[in-house]
C-alpha cells in the first residue's frame, strides 16, 4: 500500500490505481475466491498480502458501521474461500505452531465475508522432502476438488 493509497484509505475514494479497480470488479462479482500461493514464513507472500491490503479496502472488503465505528463484513456474496498452498514444514509443526496464512484467509478474511462463507484448504506439507508421487497426488486432489466445486 503506497503513502497516497494510505492517505485515501478512509476517504470517499480509496481506489487510485486502475489495475486495483479491475481487481475490485472481479472480487465483487465473485462467489468463490481461490487463493493459490506458497507459504513463506508461515504466512502469505508479500505480493498476496499486498493484494489484500490494496484491493479489499473499505467499501469493498469491509465497511465501518456508522454508529459504532466497528468493522462490518462487506463480501457477503462470497460463498466459499479456498486456499491451495505448499509448506516447507511438516504438517504437525504447521498445525501446532503457526499456519498464519491459513488463518489470515479462513478467519480474518472470512470475517469480511460473513460466517456463512465456507472455507476449504488444500495443502502439501514438507515439500522439501516430498516425492514426485506426493506432488502428483496433491495436484490430482486439487484438480478433483476444483472440478467438483459448486
Amino acid at each position: 500500500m503506497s503513502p497516497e493509497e494510505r492517505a485515501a484509505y478512509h476517504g470517499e475514494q480509496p481506489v487510485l490505481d486502475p489495475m486495483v479497480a479491475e481487481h475490485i470488479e472481479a472480487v465483487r462479482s465473485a462467489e468463490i475466491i481461490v487463493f493459490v500461493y506458497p507459504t513463506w514464513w508461515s504466512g502469505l507472500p508479500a505480493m498476496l498480502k499486498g493484494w489484500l491490503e490494496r484491493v479489499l479496502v473499505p467499501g469493498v472488503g469491509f465497511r465501518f458501521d456508522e454508529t459504532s465505528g466497528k468493522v462490518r463484513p462487506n463480501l457477503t456474496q462470497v460463498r466459499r474461500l479456498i486456499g491451495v498452498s505448499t509448506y516447507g514444514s511438516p504438517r504437525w509443526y504447521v498445525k501446532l505452531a503457526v499456519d498464519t496464512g491459513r488463518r489470515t484467509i479462513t478467519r480474518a478474511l472470512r470475517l469480511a465475508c460473513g460466517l456463512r462463507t465456507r472455507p476449504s484448504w488444500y495443502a502439501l506439507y514438507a515439500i522439501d522432502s516430498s516425492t514426485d508421487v506426493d506432488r502428483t497426488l496433491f495436484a490430482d486432489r486439487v484438480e478433483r476438488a476444483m472440478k467438483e466445486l459448486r
Partner: protein
Amino acid sequence: MAQSRFIRLLTRFGSTPQRVLVISCHPSAEGLIPAARQRILGSLDSCDVDVRHTDLYSDGFKPELTAEEHRHHTDPVVSDDLMRYTRDLTWCDTLVLVYPTWWSTQPAMLKGWIDRVWAAGVAWELPNGADRLVPRLQNVRRIIVVTSHGSNKWINSFQGEGGKRVAFRSLRSMCNRRTRCHWWALYGVDTSSEQTRRAWLEQLDERTIGLFG
C-alpha cells in the same frame, strides 16, 4: 528499582553496548505507528545502546521476492540491493519491529522484508540431505514487536494473532534458542480514545527505558 539498575550497570560493566535494529513500516508520516516509532527511537537515544533504524517505506524497499531470487532461494547469495539490510540483521542483538497490523498480520511491505532479507545463508541454511532448516541468527537475542490493531483483542484472538505467530514463532525459530520476545501492542485502535493512545505511547517510553536504560 535503584538496586536493579545498579546490578544492571554492574553486569554491563566492560561489555559493549547493546545493538538495536529498529525496522519500522508505515506509509504515512503521521499517525499512531509513526508516533510510536518516534517514541521508541527517542527513548533509545537516551539509553546507552547502538541503534540502527530503517523505515521500509522511506527507503523505497521493494517487497516482492523476485523470480530470480526464488530460483536461487537455497543458495546463500545476497544481492547488492539487500546487502545493507542483511548486514543490519546479522549485526543486531535486539530486533524491534514497528508496524500496523493489517488483515491480522504484518503489512506486505514488512512481510517482503522478511521474505527477502531472512534468506538462505543469512537467517537459515539447509545442509545437503537435511529436512530441517538450521537457524543462523544466533546474534538476535531479543525480539520486540510494537504494533496496533484496528479491532479488539477478541477479534484478533479469533483471527489467530497471525502477526504474533510470524514474529515469535517463525522468525524466532531462526534466532538464538534463548531469544526473548516482547509484545507491545495496542488493540481496538479504531474505537480508541485519544487518551488510551497517549497512554500506550507513554508506556512504550517506559518499557524501552526499562529494558535498555
